[in-house]
């Protein structure tokens, strides 16, 4: 499967899932870092941009830094400002 046909599954929560209308989105993915994931999401769903700008990104069960590489099969989640407690 050539890289150009690959996609990345990204989990959404709370107000972000509501804004997107779903809890998981698939963005086109040619490889890159966490920063590139953000750009791919905004390119597909520009309406998420304001909340995304205030969100962290998680890979698996930990928060990721902006320059971390994200492989196509990664467990990616967008973490908007929290309100638990």
């Amino acid at each position, binding site marked *: 499967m050539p890289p150009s046909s690959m996609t990345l599954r990204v989990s959404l929560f709370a107000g972000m899932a*509501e804004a997107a209308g779903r809890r998981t989105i698939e963005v086109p993915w040619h490889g890159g870092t966490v920063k590139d994931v953000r750009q791919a999401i905004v390119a597909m769903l520009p309406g998420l941009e304001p909340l995304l700008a205030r969100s962290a990104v998680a890979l698996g*069960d*930990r928060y990721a830094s902006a320059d971390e590489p994200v492989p196509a099969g990664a467990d990616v989640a967008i973490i908007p*400002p*929290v309100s638990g*407690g």
Partner: protein
Amino acid sequence: MAGCASPIAVCREVVTITDDPIDPTALLAAVAAVAAGGNVLFVGTARSMTDGVATTCLAYDAHEPLARSVLAGLLAAARDRFSLIACGVAHRLGVIEAGEASVAVAASAPHRQAAFEATEWLMEQIKRDVPIWKCEYRPDGSHAWVHGDAVPRSDHVVRAERDNLSAVTSHE
């Protein structure tokens, strides 16, 4: 694994994330120890009114694996930072009616001040960094997810604070 307050106590931390009602008494019992002099339990309950607006119920969403991981890191950090004997947290997900508990935090320490400080600190961190979200339902049928402005901090920052280094370095 430094920071156990007493050689006769078992160092331990308890994380519970559940759709069922929280049992604060069980959490308090889980941090009990003969070396403890001070035991603090905080229970956060759903208010019927928030800033003058009626709330019929709350619903909580979470990234569970990340929440467990961040909570475990916070409890370990609290234990070391405040020389706790034990500490624990329980958070409920799903629909919560007014008066029901959404979160409970407990800490035990030889003296009361450390137990108070640790419990307050844990609640601050939980409200800042743990990926759990609240939705408020109003009497008119409307609802709103609550998102502040603070970007949740990475575990890098939590680790740095645990090691007593100075604050924010790696907001993702």
